[in-house]
């Protein structure tokens, strides 16, 4: 049987997708396939190209491999460029001198980055941003650069700017139009985006047209603008849009789109019946699509065309959801309201939190035609569903973009979606397809992804996919796996409930009743933590010792060199001169590095395991207690100086801070807990960034909850006003125990409250109005925890069995020869790798 000779030019995302579909189709054997790719790499994930700068390797970005093509029986020529096509003789010329004949030709040549025709744009250290090779060149140039300029403030320009920031360059973005992302968002959105991006340290210059690039005086290059201004920089990335790569079909006389690209019909066929075009190189209705999803759709259509099936390309949606430099931006449909007649607009702008949202609706207010989001993309999925499926808008359409009032989030339930609703537009997977996967035997999000490929494109649909799968599984009566680890098929909350209500006393009992295997470094510390917040036994007792995480296991925080830090409690940050002197003496005698912490106490670093008991002996004799800096437990209660000294103070914040710290000290929780108390509204103790924040008022105390610093800061919510001291403490007691019972593993109060159904209002009902009838029980657990407090170091020192573990080795008492220190600013610190290599002599300590 004669095979049809198929040649594909271009081995990018869309070309590869086409071949993947072909290989999987039962008609694959009817084709003899040859693929020409100009890049040296087999097709890779260009959409996630920027992750190369965050450490993703070219292998991790690869979509296909030479081996895979071989297995498919396709010939793959990489690093070879097609230089001409001859439609009459059906031949393709390659730059290595070879000539190929074809029966059918697929053009999947993508786009090239457009560089404005300005003088000097080809100087050294000028780049574009499209291929792995571009990125390698940028990386190597950045090694000797301090500043970088991106010309073009569109979507890709901002991605390039992020990359330059990641490479530690002072970064500028230059845009000739009055706003960023001109194509996708409007003026307000653009201004807000600019503010947010500038707050991140990227400087944005709008309405600046670059005229030429010359050699710089202070830096390597200089950009000169039309207005006469100049900007010196060490490297430049041009990102001023893309143009279809249509040089071959142009020279061959094929019909092109008005703005370039191979003109194709609904079957991806060009003006020559033997030539098809797909992806960014194709112009459908005079339009080239710069996104991967329409390209994938074309790949399917082209394949159908080749094997004689009926499938048409009917246009594509250009909606996008992105995180640019960490800023959420979403654009749906008719963002400007100018593609439809008589559109009406809803707008929400919050300049404090820097959020902007806009909806464009039909003249009758019934349908969503477009939307813009800046600052928070959590609204995107719901809006997208209204838009894509033409659903009737709710009675108060504005609720879709107004901040969710606690408890009444406007999220569109998945159940409300029709089966035809597209969940993943990259792979064209609908809600119905996902339900089919589940009915066909898939039993997890991962399995649905593997079968349907949903969320493996741009990734934008992954959160929606996850919630849809989980909801459908629950609706079908399937168990949704939220297992802690391979040893327990339960969540932390469920384990807490079992341990408390079944009075389970140790890990072996828990494993026997509810788990399997030996346990691991996830379930063991979680269980240890729950035992501590329920029973509050000594954490280093024989039952619990082997469960403790690194720091709890030795009641001290392990440092990078395997030594430990020593952090006694300094409640409220108040310390007498005598105690301060004593800390100094201990640090001096044991040669410890000393530092004031961010938590208003003093940390002594560099103690060897075997030194810990002797150090704590000294501290405890002097009246110090453990500071539990090592536990997922109550840490510090910071305070400001308050009414005792401060001329503005209205309450004694120091006293309250000390009382709170002494009440709650040592209590273990799903994650650490921090407090602060400020003596007046000036808020010098930064209470609103704490899990529990208290601010004095003329009448009492305002209580704030669920604040967070750290990786994702959260401003605390005002929970109750003007409480007297007793009510304040009662309220904190209850919230804390409720948190301990209902939070996930390592979930701080901020994330807990955010995911608590009903939010703050619900929590108020439970705690202030006892809506669950739990309060007596919560009070009782707190009373037990407060009464059973022990200084764990005191207990350890009293217990020879526990002390046995504080030896570097069981067969010597000696120190660890592996440790090496150098002196810096009058104290010691661990030697770095270079210093270790040179064996700089030990500082005598």
């Amino acid at each position: 049987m004669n095979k049809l000779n198929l040649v594909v030019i271009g081995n990018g995302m869309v070309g590869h997708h086409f071949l993947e579909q072909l290989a999987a189709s039962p008609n694959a054997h009817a084709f003899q396939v040859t693929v020409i790719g100009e890049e040296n790499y087999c097709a890779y994930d260009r959409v996630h190209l920027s992750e190369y700068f965050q450490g993703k390797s070219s292998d991790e970005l690869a979509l296909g491999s030479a081996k895979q093509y071989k297995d498919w029986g396709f010939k793959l020529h990489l690093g070879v460029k097609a230089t001409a096509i001859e439609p009459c003789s059906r031949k393709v010329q390659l730059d290595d001198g070879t000539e190929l004949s074809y029966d059918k030709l697929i053009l999947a040549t993508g786009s090239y980055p457009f560089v404005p025709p300005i003088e000097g744009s080809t100087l050294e250290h000028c780049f574009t941003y499209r291929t792995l090779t571009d990125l390698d060149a940028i990386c190597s140039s950045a090694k000797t650069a301090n500043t970088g300029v991106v010309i073009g403030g569109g979507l890709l320009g901002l991605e390039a700017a992020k990359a330059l920031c990641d490479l530690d360059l002072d970064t500028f973005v230059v845009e000739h139009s009055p706003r960023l992302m001109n194509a996708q968002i409007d003026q307000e959105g653009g201004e807000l985006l600019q503010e947010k991006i500038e707050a991140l340290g990227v400087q944005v210059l709008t309405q600046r047209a670059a005229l030429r690039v010359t050699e710089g005086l202070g830096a390597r290059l200089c950009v000169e603008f039309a207005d006469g201004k100049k900007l010196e920089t060490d490297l430049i990335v041009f990102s001023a849009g893309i143009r279809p790569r249509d040089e071959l079909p142009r020279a061959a006389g094929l019909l092109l789109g008005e703005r370039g690209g191979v003109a194709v019909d609904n079957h991806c066929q060009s003006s020559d019946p033997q030539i098809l075009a797909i992806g960014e190189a194709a112009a459908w209705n005079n339009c080239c699509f710069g996104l991967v999803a329409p390209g994938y759709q074309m790949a399917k259509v082209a394949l159908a065309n080749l094997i004689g099936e009926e499938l048409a390309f009917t246009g594509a949606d250009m909606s996008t959801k992105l995180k640019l430099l960490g800023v959420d931006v979403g654009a749906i449909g008719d963002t400007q309201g100018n593609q439809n007649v008589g559109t009406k607009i809803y707008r929400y702008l919050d300049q404090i939190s820097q959020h902007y949202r806009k909806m464009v609706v039909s003249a009758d207010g019934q349908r969503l035609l477009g939307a813009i989001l800046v600052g928070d993309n959590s609204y995107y999925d719901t809006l997208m569903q209204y838009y894509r499926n033409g659903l009737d808008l709710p009675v108060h359409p504005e609720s879709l973009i107004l901040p969710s009032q606690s408890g009444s989030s406007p999220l569109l339930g998945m159940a409300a979606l029709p089966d035809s609703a597209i969940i993943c537009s990259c792979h064209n997977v609908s809600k119905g397809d996902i339900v089919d996967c589940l009915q066909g035997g898939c039993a997890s999000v991962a399995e649905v992804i593997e079968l349907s490929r949903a969320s493996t494109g741009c990734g934008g649909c992954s959160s929606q996919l996850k919630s849809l799968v989980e909801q459908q599984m629950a609706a079908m009566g399937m168990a949704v796996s939220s297992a802690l680890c391979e040893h327990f098929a339960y969540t932390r909350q469920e384990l807490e409930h079992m341990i408390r209500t079944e009075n389970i006393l140790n890990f072996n009992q828990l494993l026997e009743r509810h788990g399997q295997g030996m346990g691991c470094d996830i379930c063991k510390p979680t269980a240890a933590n729950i035992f501590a917040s329920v029973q509050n036994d000594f954490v280093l007792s024989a039952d619990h010792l082997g469960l403790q995480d690194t720091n709890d296991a030795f009641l001290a925080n392990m440092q990078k060199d395997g030594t430990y830090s020593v952090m006694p409690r300094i409640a409220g940050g108040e310390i007498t001169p005598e105690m301060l002197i004593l800390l100094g003496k201990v640090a001096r005698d044991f040669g410890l590095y000393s530092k004031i912490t961010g938590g208003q106490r003093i940390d002594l670093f560099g103690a060897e395991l075997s030194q810990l008991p002797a150090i704590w002996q000294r501290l405890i004799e002097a009246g110090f207690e453990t500071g539990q800096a090592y536990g997922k437990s109550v840490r510090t209660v910071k305070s400001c100086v308050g009414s005792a000294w401060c001329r503005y103070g209205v309450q004694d914040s120091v006293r309250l801070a000390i009382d709170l710290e002494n009440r709650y000290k040592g209590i273990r929780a799903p994650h650490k807990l921090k407090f602060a108390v400020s003596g007046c509204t000036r808020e010098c103790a930064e209470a609103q960034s704490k899990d529990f924040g208290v601010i004095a008022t003329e009448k009492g105390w305002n209580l704030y909850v669920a604040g967070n610093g750290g990786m994702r800061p959260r401003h605390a919510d005002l929970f109750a006003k003007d409480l007297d001291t007793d009510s304040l403490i009662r309220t904190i007691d209850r919230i804390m125990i409720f948190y301990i019972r209902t939070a996930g593993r390592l979930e701080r109060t901020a994330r807990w409250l955010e995911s608590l159904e009903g939010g703050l209002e619900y929590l108020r009902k439970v705690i202030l109005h006892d809506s669950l009838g739990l309060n007596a029980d919560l009070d009782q657990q707190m009373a037990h925890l407060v009464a059973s407090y022990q200084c764990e170091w005191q207990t350890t020192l009293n217990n020879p069995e526990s002390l046995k573990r504080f030896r570097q080795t069981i067969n010597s008492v000696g120190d660890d020869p592996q440790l090496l220190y150098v002196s810096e600013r009058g104290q010691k610190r661990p030697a770095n790798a270079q210093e270790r290599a040179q064996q700089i002599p030990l500082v005598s300590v």
Partner: protein
Amino acid sequence: MTEQQTWITVGQRSDLIDGAGVGAQVALFYLKKHNQLFAVGNLCPFNDLNIIARGIIGDIKGEPVVASPLHKEHFSLLDGHCLEQPEVRLPVWQVRLEGNVLQVMRPATQATSTSF
């Protein structure tokens, strides 16, 4: 060239802690319930620190492992290989209890767990 194969005494039965590690030249792990003892190198190859004995033990898909305490890389207690990076290994030792005397012998290439 073969290493000298002799048993070296490193401690007593009473030095062992059920479900946890103790350090000598090697890290020794004791599981009372399964009557098992494991011995692997105490030096963590990822950061050159003598800390393996301070890690949590458990199993991953049935393979007994210890998690290095600093950054939680998992090492097999059977043959010392690192589950995240199989080319990285801890040396493994043979280990036994002679009465109450705890002894190790190096090097073992395979299963070092001793049931007794």
